[in-house]
């Protein structure tokens, strides 16, 4: 291996450089290019291989001394930047705090309309599209999410301070990553811990890499104003809304005739539905919502009939009760079962301990064809891929293209996921 000696020299140099990882990598890349060019030239002139390698390296001189030169140059630059950087960071944090308090009072799900974020805004592979109902700053959010979906290839972070690891990721995706030290210190989590992450074969997305770096430290992140802010998992909870319309078996009153077991008469189907509702929740309130739903299905199916029942469901059971409400709005028991299970699927498969039902801080509520989720970005990322997987695997099983088209035309809630 002709480059072996070069790599040795470069890693030695890198060791002496008192710089951030990204800068060290950049310097090594630049010098490697030079060394290889030089080697090529010397070889073309007929210089024996070993001699050429030695000559190329000699021209760089002592690794420690060279490292010292680079370090000094970069520290001068850093001092100049500090003032501007501190101001910028303070301003951005102040702005995001303001936004956070305005839209999202503590311990409460924010008003739906204000944070309706379309599921699939930043699917793997990009193509971000603006959400139809977008709160302030959402364009920035989807831009950041698109960058997080970028594949960054191999990662080799050994015994690196968290801040260096984050700086490296930040440079990879060209998004600022800040550490909310106050909240992390209050939670008595250490920011000084080192990161060890070696991924040699998988081509990770930046999101996956960020999760892999933060999870072992009990940290997570939020996206605010075009920045990524690293903080504790609890602090990082954010509300997002997922449009799951296309995962529902059928929408609208036309679904009325579709019974799960084919030719059951309407009445028995209804009672079966009610039984299911009761079983799922085991609460009086839930039964009430079942009744409301039955009424909806029997009388005027659709939105009008469903609305009162939905309110009852939401009020009585709260949380998951919203799922009952949703089914009612559409007036079909079958949908109730499907949507209930979607919230359940998420809560039981993705970070089970993070949901309020298990003593965590996250929550999940279904409202018509929207899933309102409050949890960490890590969980949001996992929900997105889960829904993506469900879309792919249910492609034919669900009612085909019809719902997708429908949500396209009706862009008033949020943009379509496809």
């Amino acid at each position, binding site marked *: 291996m002709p480059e072996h000696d070069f790599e040795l020299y470069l890693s030695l140099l890198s060791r002496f450089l008192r710089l951030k990882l990204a800068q060290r990598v950049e*310097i090594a890349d630049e010098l490697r*290019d*030079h060394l290889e060019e030089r080697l090529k030239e010397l070889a073309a002139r007929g210089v024996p291989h070993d001699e050429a390698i030695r000559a190329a390296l000699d*021209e760089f001189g*002592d690794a420690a*001394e060279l490292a010292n*030169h680079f370090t000094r140059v*970069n520290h001068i*630059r850093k001092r100049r930047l500090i003032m501007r950087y501190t101001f910028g960071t303070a301003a951005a944090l102040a702005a995001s705090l303001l936004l956070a308090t305005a839209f999202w009072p503590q311990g409460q799900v924010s008003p739906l309309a204000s944070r309706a974020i379309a599921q699939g805004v930043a699917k793997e592979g990009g193509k971000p599209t603006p959400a139809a109902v977008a709160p302030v700053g959402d364009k920035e959010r989807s831009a950041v999410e698109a960058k997080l979906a970028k594949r960054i290839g191999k990662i080799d972070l050994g015994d690196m301070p968290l801040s260096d690891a984050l700086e490296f990721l930040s440079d990879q995706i060209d998004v600022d990553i800040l550490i909310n030290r106050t909240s992390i210190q209050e939670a008595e989590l250490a920011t000084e811990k080192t990161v060890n992450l070696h991924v040699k074969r998988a081509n990770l997305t930046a999101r996956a890499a960020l999760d892999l770096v933060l999870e072992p430290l009990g940290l997570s992140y939020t996206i605010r104003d075009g920045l990524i802010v690293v903080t504790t998992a609890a602090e990082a909870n954010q509300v997002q809304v997922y449009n799951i319309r296309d995962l529902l078996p059928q929408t609208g009153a036309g679904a009325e005739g579709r019974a799960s077991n084919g030719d059951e008469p309407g009445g028995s189907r209804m009672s079966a539905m009610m039984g299911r509702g009761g079983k799922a929740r085991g609460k009086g309130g839930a039964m009430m919502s079942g009744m409301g739903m039955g009424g909806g299905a029997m009388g005027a199916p659709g939105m009008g009939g469903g609305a009162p029942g939905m309110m009852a469901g939401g009020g009585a059971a709260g949380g998951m009760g919203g799922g009952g409400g949703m089914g009612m709005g559409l007036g079909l028991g079958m949908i109730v079962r499907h949507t209930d299970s979607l919230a359940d699927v998420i809560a039981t498969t993705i970070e089970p301990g993070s949901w309020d039902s298990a003593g965590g801080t996250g929550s999940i509520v279904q409202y018509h064809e929207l899933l309102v989720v409050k949890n960490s970005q890590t969980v949001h990322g996992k929900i997105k891929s889960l829904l993506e997987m469900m879309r792919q695997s249910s492609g034919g099983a669900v009612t085909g293209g019809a719902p997708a088209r429908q949500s396209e035309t009706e862009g008033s809630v949020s943009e379509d996921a496809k």
Partner: protein
Amino acid sequence: MTKFNPELMRGSLDLMVLSVLAGGRKYGYLLQQELRDASRGLVDVQAGTLYPLLHRLESDKLIRCKWDDSTGRRRKWYELTEPGRKRLSAQAREWHEYAECLRTMLAPILGPAPRPAT
């Protein structure tokens, strides 16, 4: 002719690098070669000197860099910035006068055939 003593070049190396970059963007290795060619082999900057110098000029915003793989290989390219161009023309004048001054001063010592300054 022997190569110039690095001590002698110390104050003017920045200027030489800027003047080579005035001819278009270059990556480090290419820049080193062109310095050598432009000086007919008299200026041979060691790689260990060149790269910290480039980083310093970049830090002073006289040049800027960009990674790019247009040559089929990902490389760090340097080019002159506007302040760099201004610095170059201001210092070129100054150095010219300096060299002229030195030449006149040293002329009696060298005798009838003084070597023109590069």
